[in-house]
């Protein structure tokens, strides 16, 4: 017993130790990942973010240097606080608070004291900096805009948030990332890849040399410059025209599907979201719940398209063979659904297709619409056929553009009406409003422009897109270079286009003709309503216009949607004709018209429903 005592103790200790060690090293084994090993500091080398050019190679977005004032609290020596605060343009309380925050974060590590000084502030501060120990200036790169427009298309970059960090391990807190628009969509192309150096640290967080001799370090990979399809001048001009108006404009090159302009009103200067005032400006924009400048109306604003939709119904009817271009309908200054009379502004009389489009006759299209449904034994079958044709123009669903936002619009099918009215309890007469683009159909300006491009191409479109080329290679995703054919035969487009051309020559838009350019267009005047204190109240009509030009060889197709702009030719038609002239001729010949559009605003219309007082709508006087 006494001889074995110590031996057994030794064995017991040995087994206990081995047991504990297997628990620690085998069971609880938690390998140190390089990313979260506390002993390895990662120093990142950020490449410059890629520039963004417009379709003609003009710079839209570049970079500028900004200067952060950094502090290492431990190394701060007593200083002339007053002078320092003056140089930094902050008050003493802010200074003390920021110093405290920095010390709490870490006395040994640098914190940002004042972010993003401008070049001027930096110059002033730089020569005095040596008087202030523990502070230094760190350069960093910010976006620099050479355009005052396209804010929503270009998007902005900002520091990654918790959500980004959870979803994408590439990012580290404090890094910048594209949050909307092109900056978001082409984030990986633009940002490049940061380089990383691994530094071995001690427990006081001091550097003690490269980790593994730098074998795991990588060099930064430059961000690539991209060219987008926007025309900078057209975009800026459109935004000037949009001044004081709400709505969206989209212009597309029909031959390629490239988006030439994408205007949302009201908008903001992209430079507002850069620099020291960024968060203040952002809050202002974000909380403007009345005009919603951050809401991109050109791509996310779905509304009834109005009369431009009539062209599609004409095409469907031709394709289905239920009418000929010469088929006539009589307009009684309106038409009857049962006993109910619906109005029409075309002036009445007998209409064929060309004059129906030209004068935007509601009665003509109501008749056409019914004929489509009457061809089939049941309304359901008629509905399916109609829906298939309309959707082939890219309506009623996401188009699949390379922009991160957007709305699908709405083309109601039979299930939609079955839910609404009940199965078998609706017919073409119930949904007759769809014939003139009111009712339940809805589309975004982008979809309307795309639809117009499909008409301009006589039967196909390319998915609208914003990217023209990356770096020097022009290779695009095949998604954007393959045509999508509509279900309408090419031959049926000519009479419709002739009608649209007549709109300009003789019809609803004859006052805004552009000399020497043949334009095909279609006006739209869309009734719209809002709710004030639970009451449905009608507002001034939305002014809509779609057009493409030149008719023979279309270079631009566009849709203009102006909220409460009254009839189609008034605001939307004016703006569309100016944009077409600007794009095709490069200059404006009709200066009075231009002047009128630049100066007129619709603020008084937008103020009406908010005024709390009774108001008149659709005032004829400008």
């Amino acid at each position, binding site marked *: *017993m*006494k*001889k074995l*005592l*110590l*031996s057994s*103790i*030794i*064995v017991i*200790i*040995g087994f*206990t*130790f*081995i047991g*504990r*060690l*297997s628990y*620690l*090293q*085998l069971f*609880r*084994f*938690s*390998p*140190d990942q390089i990313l979260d*090993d*506390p*002993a*390895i500091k990662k120093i990142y080398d950020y490449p410059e973010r890629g520039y963004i050019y417009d379709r003609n190679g003009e710079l839209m977005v570049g970079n500028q240097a900004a200067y952060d004032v950094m502090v290492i609290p431990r190394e701060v020596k007593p200083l002339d606080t007053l002078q320092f605060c003056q140089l930094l343009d902050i008050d003493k309380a802010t200074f003390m608070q920021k110093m405290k925050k920095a010390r709490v974060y870490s006395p040994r590590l640098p914190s940002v004291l004042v972010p993003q000084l401008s070049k001027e502030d930096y110059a002033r501060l730089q020569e005095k900096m040596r008087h202030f120990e523990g502070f230094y200036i760190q350069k960093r790169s910010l976006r620099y805009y050479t355009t005052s427009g396209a804010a929503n298309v270009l998007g902005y970059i900002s520091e990654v948030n918790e959500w980004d960090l959870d979803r994408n391990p590439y990012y580290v807190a404090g890094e910048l990332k594209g949050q909307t628009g092109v900056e978001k969509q082409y984030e990986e192309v633009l940002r490049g890849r940061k380089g990383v150096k691994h530094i*071995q*640290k*001690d*427990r006081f967080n001091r550097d*003690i040399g490269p*980790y*593994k001799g730098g074998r795991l370090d990588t060099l930064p990979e430059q961000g690539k410059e991209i060219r987008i399809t926007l025309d900078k001048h057209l975009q800026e001009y459109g935004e000037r025209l949009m001044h004081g108006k709400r709505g969206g404009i989209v212009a597309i090159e029909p031959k390629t599907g490239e988006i030439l302009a994408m205007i949302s009103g009201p908008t903001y200067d992209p430079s507002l979201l850069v620099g020291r005032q960024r968060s203040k400006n952002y809050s202002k924009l974000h909380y403007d719940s009345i005009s919603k400048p951050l809401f991109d109306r050109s791509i996310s604003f779905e509304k009834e398209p109005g009369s431009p939709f009539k062209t599609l119904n004409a095409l469907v009817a031709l394709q289905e063979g239920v009418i000929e271009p010469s088929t006539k309908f009589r307009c009684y200054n309106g038409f009857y659904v049962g006993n109910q009379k619906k109005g029409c502004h075309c002036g009445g009389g007998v209409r064929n297709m060309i004059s129906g489009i030209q004068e935007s006759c509601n009665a003509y299209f109501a008749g056409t619409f019914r004929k489509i449904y009457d061809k089939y034994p049941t309304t359901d079958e008629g509905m399916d056929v109609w829906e298939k044709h309309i959707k082939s123009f890219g309506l009623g669903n996401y188009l699949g553009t390379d922009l991160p936002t957007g709305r699908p619009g709405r083309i109601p099918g039979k299930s939609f009406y079955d839910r609404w009215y009940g199965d078998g309890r609706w017919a073409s007469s119930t949904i007759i409003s769809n014939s003139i683009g009111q009712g339940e159909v809805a589309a975004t300006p982008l979809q309307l422009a795309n639809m117009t491009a499909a008409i301009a191409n006589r039967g196909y479109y390319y998915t609208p897109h914003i990217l023209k080329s990356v770096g020097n290679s022009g290779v695009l995703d095949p998604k954007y270079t393959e045509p999508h054919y509509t279900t309408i035969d090419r031959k049926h487009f000519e009479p419709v286009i002739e009608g649209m051309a007549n709109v300009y020559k003789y019809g609803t838009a004859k006052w805004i003709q552009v000399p020497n350019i043949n334009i095909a267009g279609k006006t739209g005047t869309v009734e719209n309503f809002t709710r004030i204190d639970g009451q449905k109240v009608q507002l001034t009509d939305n002014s809509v216009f779609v057009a493409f030009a030149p008719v023979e060889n279309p270079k631009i197709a566009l849709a203009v949607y102006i909220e409460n702009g009254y009839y189609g030719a008034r605001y939307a038609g004016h703006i569309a004709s100016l944009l077409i002239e600007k794009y095709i001729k490069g200059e404006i010949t009709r200066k009075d018209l231009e002047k009128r559009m630049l100066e007129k605003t619709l603020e008084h219309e937008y103020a009406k429903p908010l005024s709390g007082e009774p108001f008149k709508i659709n005032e004829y006087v400008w």
Partner: protein
Amino acid sequence: MFGRGLFGRIDWLTVILYALLVLIGWVNIYSTTLSDPNTSIFDFSTLYGKQLFFIGLAGLGILFVLFIETNFFERFASIFYIVSLVLLLGLFVFGKTIAGATSWYDLGFFNLQPSELAKVTTALALAKYLSDIQTDIKNRRHQIYALLLILLPALLILPQPDPGSSLIYFSLFFVLFREGFPLYYLGILLVMVLLFATTLMFGTVWVSIGLVMLTILIYGFKKKSTKIPVLPFMAIIGAAVLFSFSVGFVFDNVFEQRHRDRFALWLSLEKDEKKLEEIRKTIGYNTYQSEKAIESGGFFGKGFLEGTRTKGDFVPEQHTDYIFSSVGEEWGFMGTATVIFLFSFFFLRLIFIAERQKSDFSRMYGYGVISILLIHYFINIGMVIGLLPTIGVPLPFFSYGGSGLIFFTMLLFIFLKLDSNRLKDGI
């Protein structure tokens, strides 16, 4: 003239195990203290360079011990013991204070720690006293003399303060147990430790209730034939309850807060998560970092010089008391298991050697050596892997430090020298 005879009789297996432990220790000290890979390993301005120098000194010490006549140690044991007591006393006057403990003499080139020396001399003195023909271990008075021999240096070391080192001397009880000291003393000691821990964990009331339940159980299940004397039994139970009461008092009034915190952490006494976290960050910081470093090693380890936590100096005192955590991080479970195996094998080999001695003195001294080395090993690794509370003792042959290495080496090689002479003894 000593030639083949002496070296032929040395137990080479032990020497090889010793050399392996020193070598592995040094490799880990190198990894822990290396800051610039371009310096030579013989650069004495670095800690690993110094340790290499100490290993050299230890080598000289070995030769010195081996060439001294065997009887020398037995004959002068008492004098050595008295000299070391004087040296310990002298610390109160001439001592040099390092890290709050007055445990060193400043010899200029070298800081001498007499408590290390006293481990060797106490082991020698105890062996000498017990092997004396006139000493009878069964005799109560002789038992008390033996206890005094052990406790005197421990008491002198305690106020330095160096409770870790004074704890070491208690290991010499194993020598007494081997020589026939009644084993129930060990039983009493274990029961006291058990009562201490359970009282802290569950409180005096529950421990008392437990003891009463135990009494009832013993009476309930005993065979009819066995008679248990009632009075002494009740007295023992009563004493246990009383002890349990005193534990609370001692813990709250005699211990300092840092000691209380160490126990609180060790026995998970603190139920408040926030406070526990606080203790873990302050008192438990070393243990936490050391466990984390060992955990991160896994089965294969991160590789020699690749331990990021070791390099980052995340574990405080890693080259001295926490050297084993470097083994854990860089060599993984394979490394730690190997070291545990080497130590266990080393100790068992020493027991084998001790038992083959014909001379009582040699055997008793051997047990002293084993006891001292074993308790260092047990407390140190137990602390590093988080099984025991933080008690600062070095890992023999591994930890950085001159005094430690040299005296551990002397301690061991005096025994090997005695062993080499075993055939001449007892004739």
